[in-house]
């Protein structure tokens, strides 16, 4: 129990100290991107890793958060704080409505339905030009202010996003080690047994879906206020799949998977953007997807539970073999 909290505090300390030690706007901007993705993946890890429900459409909520806050704050002059909350409420509502029929589906069908949902929302961003600006994009999203303090430079924004990430990680961690978290994990473990102990599976799937949508929405909103310009392509099906890659890379055996997966993804894509053009001079566009594709396939075939689980396996090998009691070994069975 205490070990769990200690890790969180150490992590928070590291986050706090980083900009004081490393003075690089480039690194800060990378860490900010990792922050956005960590926030999305935090919710998504709860949904996919703990409750075992796949989503191929979370870019939609990221986008809804971004466009709602952009529209309300830039077009209607709302305070960004309020518009971010409005985005989260709308995302939660949509997740709830869409979730009801969607989570009656399983496996392949669930994957297809969430993918379809993502494409529909993406198309709406593209086509409802009067609100979103269509493919030309949405300009002039204001930055966030706290009283006179404006989150306009990277260092300030860094603290803002990572505060939110930390709070959400804490929230998730609390969920996991509670009645609700066990209910979620039980769904992945065995739906028949969840039923048998009186867990309303549908209710928990919906709750965690709404939670993950809120996380994605807030991340998208913050992203919009950070970059001040958004266009639909930032929220297409590819992004949903990138989220999936991050969640799978990080793994779901701990909430840190979200941060680790996002970090690996962002750092790897930055690295590839630096290195690949040196080797292949004609590489352009989103060539780095080759590597992510390979990463995804290799992870799923050889490390299906993600990096955190692989790490636990390596470090935990001796521990489990010594603590397994003789009674457990000699219990018989088939």
């Amino acid at each position: 129990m205490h070990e769990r909290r200690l890790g969180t505090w150490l992590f928070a300390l590291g986050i706090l100290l980083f900009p004081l030690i490393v003075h690089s706007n480039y690194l800060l901007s990378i860490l900010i991107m990792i922050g956005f993705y960590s926030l999305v993946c935090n919710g998504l890890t709860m949904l996919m890793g703990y409750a075992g429900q796949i989503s191929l459409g979370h870019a939609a909520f990221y986008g809804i958060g971004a466009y709602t806050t952009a529209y309300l704050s830039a077009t209607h002059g709302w305070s960004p704080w309020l518009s971010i909350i409005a985005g989260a409420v709308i995302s939660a509502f949509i997740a709830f409505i869409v979730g009801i029929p969607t989570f009656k589906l399983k496996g392949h069908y669930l994957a297809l339905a969430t993918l379809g949902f993502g494409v529909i929302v993406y198309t709406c961003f593209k086509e409802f030009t009067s609100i979103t600006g269509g493919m030309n994009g949405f300009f002039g999203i204001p930055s966030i202010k706290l009283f006179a303090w404006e989150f306009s430079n990277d260092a300030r924004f860094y603290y803002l996003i990572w505060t939110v990430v930390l709070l959400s990680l804490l929230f998730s961690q609390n969920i996991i080690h509670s009645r609700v978290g066990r209910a979620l994990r039980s769904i992945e473990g065995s739906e028949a047994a969840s039923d048998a102990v009186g867990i309303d599976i549908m209710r928990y799937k919906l709750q965690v879906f709404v939670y993950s949508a809120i996380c994605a929405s807030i991340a998208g909103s913050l992203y919009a206020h950070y970059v001040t310009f958004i266009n639909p392509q930032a929220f297409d099906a590819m992004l949903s799949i990138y989220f999936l890659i991050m969640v799978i890379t990080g793994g779901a055996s701990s909430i840190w998977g979200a941060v680790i997966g996002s970090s690996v993804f962002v750092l790897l894509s930055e690295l590839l953007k630096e290195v690949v053009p040196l080797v292949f001079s004609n590489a352009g566009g989103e060539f780095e997807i080759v590597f992510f594709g390979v990463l995804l396939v290799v992870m799923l075939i050889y490390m299906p539970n993600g990096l955190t689980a692989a790490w636990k396996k390596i470090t935990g090998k001796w521990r489990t073999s010594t603590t397994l009691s003789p009674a457990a070994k000699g219990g018989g069975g088939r």
Partner: protein
Amino acid sequence: MKRNGQVLLTVEHITKQFGGVVAVNDVSFDVNKGEILAVIGPNGAGKTTLFNIVTGILAPSSGTVRFNGTDITGKKPYQIAQLGMTRTFQNLEVFTNMSVIENVMTGAHRNMKTSFLQAGLRVPSVKKEEKAVEEKAMRCLEKVGIAHLAYERAETLPYGNQRLLEIARAIAAEPALILLDEPMAGLNDEESRWLVEVILQLRKEGLTFVFVEHDMETVMAISDHIVVLDNGVKIGEGTPEEIYRNKAVVAAYLGEEETVC
């Protein structure tokens, strides 16, 4: 009926058809509080179908199931469980992604109150509830004799202990009735004996059991009351002695599966 006691579960004229096949045909019986009732019958007799109807996995074509005075016919499995009826599985449905004690704590779900928001914010009541449920889970594990394995990963447990874990999980819900689906399947003699002991002890503490079982030795040894199905029809019921004397049962059941006894 000469059994006395308070009726806990009533199965009334249950019929279930799959297409043209009648899997269960007009079966009725009562389960009294504090009783161990066995449902037996040759393969294909309709035991599993009946079991699935009582637990809400299947809806009957006709008839009603009443539990603790409530009509539970057509209710969903989790709703029935929330009313205080839990079960174990023949093919083990342990939550392999949790530790042993977490499995049992999950079993206590229905008597806990923490909501999503409360859990996330970890309000003081959550801490208290977590502590209480962990202690309760530990007591349940002690009752089935695997408390020393509480913090192992559930999937590392051998088969027999996983069966015990399922029972611990079922009793953590503080149910009025536990349904056991072939609890002896896959257990060796020593494990079977221990399981019988556990069940008898739990009955002493006021629990009621209904179980479907192939192992006649266990059935005869621990049941207070036996219901015999054949081809979806109830062909007899009574105490173990009465079942032994029941010609129809001996002919239909023992005749077909002589090797069992």
